């Protein structure tokens, strides 16, 4: 039994189409686990299925031995959450108010305003993503990258033991990408279980402790980056030729694309 996330033989159908076909995966506490694969491989669906946001045909999802799908939404939201790929809104909410949304699962119906603990957790989360200076700005006036970081802060305010993220670096510049992944890395080291979908293979290689490669709704490889990021697997899944080098400083895999010419 895993102390972390354990997905066993999960299948998801959409009409007649099979989106996920008996996928297994584990993600351990203290580690950043990366989910990679081409567009349409089923990464987003898998993340959603784990939190009961996509209807599962068969299979089980548990965390620390507890069935995740059997618990109430509110209970689940108290220890697991998900950061979507892009989250826009027209609501007139300040950055602080958006982060405070993360405290909803802990508040009662009769409570009129957030508690002092809620407010301090929200501020700590904003500080963690380096957005505290923007706390009183209206969310919809922020740039795409800033909004992304605020969404991560919202998730952190939920104090999740399991944090799922779908392409958390997609709107970010290089500096913000690295800062975000470093933050997630640090969260994992503090005991969190982190599972994220990533497109950029070099970021996946550099930051993830374990990788899961999805292709056409199936898991085709899982393990440490150097076992998953091999020329043969990448050729088979992405249809591209690569040379896998070693980073001269940290020894992690470094993907070089074999371009013609």
């Amino acid at each position: 039994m895993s102390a972390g996330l354990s997905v066993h033989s999960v299948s998801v159908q959409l009409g007649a189409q099979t989106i996920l076909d008996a996928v297994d995966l584990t993600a351990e506490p203290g580690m950043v686990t990366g989910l990679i694969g081409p567009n349409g491989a089923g990464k987003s669906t898998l993340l959603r299925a784990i939190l009961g946001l996509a209807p599962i045909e068969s299979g089980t999802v548990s965390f620390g031995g507890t069935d995740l799908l059997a618990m109430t939404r509110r209970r689940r939201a108290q220890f697991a959450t998900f950061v979507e790929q892009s989250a826009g809104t027209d609501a007139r909410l300040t950055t602080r108010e958006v982060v405070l949304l993360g405290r909803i699962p802990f508040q009662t119906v009769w409570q009129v305003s957030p508690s002092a603990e809620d407010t301090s957790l929200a501020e700590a989360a904003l500080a963690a993503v380096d957005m505290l200076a923007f706390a009183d700005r209206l969310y919809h006036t922020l740039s795409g990258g800033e909004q992304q970081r605020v969404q991560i802060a919202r998730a952190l305010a939920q104090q999740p033991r399991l944090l799922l993220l779908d392409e958390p670096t997609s709107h970010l510049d290089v500096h913000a990408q690295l800062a975000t992944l470093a933050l997630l890395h640090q969260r994992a080291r503090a005991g969190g279980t982190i599972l994220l979908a990533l497109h950029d293979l070099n970021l996946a290689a550099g930051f993830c402790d374990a990788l899961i490669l999805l292709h056409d709704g199936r898991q085709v490889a899982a393990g440490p980056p150097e076992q998953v990021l091999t020329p043969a697997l990448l050729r088979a899944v992405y249809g591209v030729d690569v040379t896998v080098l070693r980073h001269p400083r940290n020894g992690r895999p470094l993907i070089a694309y074999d371009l013609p010419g």
Partner: protein
Amino acid sequence: MNQRTLVTLCLSLLALLFASLVLAVTFGPADIAPSEVWLTIGHHFGLLPESPVSRLRDAIIWELRLPRVLTAAAVGAGLALCGAVMQALTRNPLADPYLLGLSSGASLGAVAFLLMGAALLMPLGAFLGAGAAMALTLLVTQLLGGATPTRAILAGISISALAAAATSFLIFWSATGDSYREILSWLMGSLSGVVWSEALLVLAALALAGLPILLSGRALDAFAFGDTAAATLGVDVARLRWLLLGGTALLTGVLVSIGGAIGFVGLIVPHVVRLLTGSRHRVLLPLAMLLGASFMIWTDTAARSLFAPRELPVGIITALLGAPIFLAVLLRYRRIT
């Protein structure tokens, strides 16, 4: 907006509502002083055994004006609440019971029950009509390719047109002379001739549907980023949506069965409050109800005073004020349509 300004705003709106309730009663052909309003209320609640107010003036205050002003307040509060909830649930800044076809559906249901001889069941007919219109609008929106504000409005307009045509046909078919004129005035939105039983019905519906809606304020906040985000915050999205859409259909049905299709209140009021306080529904919903109540009291007072002794349907005034604001919101949000 900090806590102190918020409390000040809330108290100001409450004061405005109470002042409006009393002052609006004094408006009209018979000149009535605010003190007489208090004395009459006191008398009817048994606090004053002997009222110095004459019986005629007592009747004007207690039988004619008070129920009407209270109904206006409840209708305004209810419409503002429905508008704010629909805007949050459908993530559509243009949503409002009138624009999404609920009011027309409610009118059709009410007229159908009326003409079938079940005048007492008009609120039920209106509720069924509002619910059916809402379901159709949501369905057509899906058929148009999913929810965007413009698609929802187009769907609402088409359902609204359909319901309005059916209503007109029913009236053409069976109503005659005086009843024709009366129904027509009610269709445009009018609180003319409201009596206590109707005032109490509207207030009861407001309490019944309003309380669960107000308590769902925080869950509505979770919808700011869509259904998935709400679900990850522990909200039972499907259940809440049924509860709130059902509540708005019920409330709209009752409001329309009494006051007709009064448009744009549900659009204007939440937008004004949002500009002042932001989108947190715990604050937005009650304040929108307070402002909506005062707004409706004064538009209805204008409706019965401007062309006295003739009554202007109040729906004309709200549309006159609301349509430009609708346009402004439309222009402001053009990028997301």
